[in-house]
Each structure stands twice: as structure tokens, then as C-alpha cells.
């Protein structure tokens, strides 16, 4: 799954700010850390501010700080501000009678979308920050058992 640029920038910013809610960061500080466009990030932060997830701090040393509840806000809550996940858009397109191949493909793709939505809804910002702290990508993941050949299964 690939997120749109604005969505990814929003997740970077919200998680960066939620990691330390007392701290305020400028657009440039966040943009420099992630190597992204400050101009684009500024627009994303304004959208996040309108949604109440961050608040602008004015004056010298101003910037943004986290304004949400990290234990309640999920990755899906942030993503939905910027894009729709597949199932939401596909369901709005009616199928024409006789399009069995299209219906079958939609059925299979809906499996993936349902898994994606369930995963994004289940991970709060707080859980995501804990996961980042554990760095599970640095550990060898659990592997599925080696497949047996048809001869071995017999």
C-alpha cells in the first residue's frame, strides 16, 4: 500500500509531535528531519490544525504542538483526513449486471482493503510510538514454515 504524499507528511508530523506533546516544532524543523517540502508540510499542518490534531503556537519560537489524544487517535483517523482507503471508493461504483469478472476482482481486492482498514483502525498513535520504540523491523520476523512439496505431503 502506498500513501499519498500529504498523508505520509501528516503521519510524520503528528507522530513526531505526539512523541513529545509538550514540545513545539516549526514546519522547517519537521521538514528538515524527514527531507520533505516545507511548503507542502505547512499546508498539511494547517489541515491537521483545522481537524484539532495539532495547534499552532504563535510568537518567538512558535511552531506546532500535538493537541489530540494519542491513546484514542488511530492511524486511520489521520489518514482519512487526506485520502480514502480503497473499499470506501470502490463501494461507491455500482457494478453492471454481467460483469462477473469485475465483481470477482472487486471481491478479492475487498479482502485486502478490509485487512488494511482493520489494521489502520487498530493502531493508535500511542501504540505506533511504542512500536517505533521497539524497532521490530530490526528483528528477524517470524517466518512461515517451509512449504512441503506434493511428494512430501503424500
Amino acid at each position, binding site marked *: 500500500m502506498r500513501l499519498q504524499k500529504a498523508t505520509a507528511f501528516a503521519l510524520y508530523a503528528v507522530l513526531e509531535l505526539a512523541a513529545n506533546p509538550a514540545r513545539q516544532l516549526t514546519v522547517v524543523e519537521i521538514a528538515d528531519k524527514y527531507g520533505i517540502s516545507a511548503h507542502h508540510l505547512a499546508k498539511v499542518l494547517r489541515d491537521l490544525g483545522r481537524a484539532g490534531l495539532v495547534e499552532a503556537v504563535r510568537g518567538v519560537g512558535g511552531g506546532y504542538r500535538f493537541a489530540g489524544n494519542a491513546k484514542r487517535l488511530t492511524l486511520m483517523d489521520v489518514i482519512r483526513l487526506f485520502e480514502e482507503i480503497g473499499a470506501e471508493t470502490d463501494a461507491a461504483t455500482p457494478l453492471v449486471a454481467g460483469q462477473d469478472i469485475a465483481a470477482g476482482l472487486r471481491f478479492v481486492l475487498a479482502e485486502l482493503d478490509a485487512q488494511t482498514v*482493520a489494521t489502520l483502525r*487498530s493502531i*493508535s498513535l500511542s*501504540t505506533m510510538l511504542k512500536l517505533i520504540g521497539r524497532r521490530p523491523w530490526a528483528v528477524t520476523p*517470524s517466518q*512461515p514454515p517451509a512449504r*512441503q512439496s506434493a511428494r512430501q505431503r503424500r
Partner: protein
Amino acid sequence: MAKAQRSEPAEPVGIRRATAADMPGVIALDEAVTGLRKPEYWREVFGRYGAARRELGSFLVAEAAGRIEGFIVGEVRAWEFGSPPCGWIFAVQVRAARRVQGLGSRLFDAVCESFRAAGVDRVRTMLARDDTVIHAFFRSQGMTAGPFIQLEMRLD
């Protein structure tokens, strides 16, 4: 687990292995949470994993002032589709008034400790995809997607 209500007084809660005397409390708590009364099922689960059968699994209860406030049940499974022995959690419930107080985490830690004592180094579970609350609970404990996929079909 439904949305937490936090009005309950906080008597100390102890976690221990379930006994036969706990089953009415377990059955009542499960019924309160799921809306389904399943006494035969819970007595069968206790028969398999209760205090006298600890080598097969762990049936743990959280109890305060003589009342069952939560429970968790798990077992060590081995070689299902080639999976080396691992811990499996297949039931967890916490009374609504006791949620968001760390009791579910204590139950989770306790059952994981029993799995470690049994010599396994991994824990798995399976849950309803639309049960966001329990999904979020397991994620908050550090669980992530594993290498297996759950499939099903209708038997017409």
C-alpha cells in the same frame, strides 16, 4: 471489549489460576460482555486448561473481593501447518468497569509468562476483524501481524 466505564471502586485485583468455583463468575462475565450464555463451553474449557491441567494451557482469572473481574485463556499449540510450538491466546475478557486500568495488560503478561515457562518464545491469537477494541488491545501489547493467513468457506 466495549467502551470502558470508570466508576468502579478500585479494590486490589489478584491474578491466579482459575478454579472450578470461578466458573459461574467467568460464565456470567462472558455473558455480560458477549450477550451469549455458554456454560457447557466454559466448563469444557476449564476441564482442559484448569488448575489440574496446567501442562496443557493456562486459564487465569483476575479476582477482586471474591468477584471475577477478568480472565484469559491460552494454550501451547504445535505443528499446525508446520508452526513450531507457540502460545495461543483464544479468550480474554475484562469487566467494562475495570477497563483502561491495566488489568487486561496484567492478564496478557501473566499468560505470556506461563508460555515462557512452557518453553515457547512466541504468542499468537486470532480475532474478529471488525472488533477494533480487542484488536487495538492486542496491538497495544506489542502484537503485530504474523506469517499465517486465516481462510474460511461456507459448507452448503
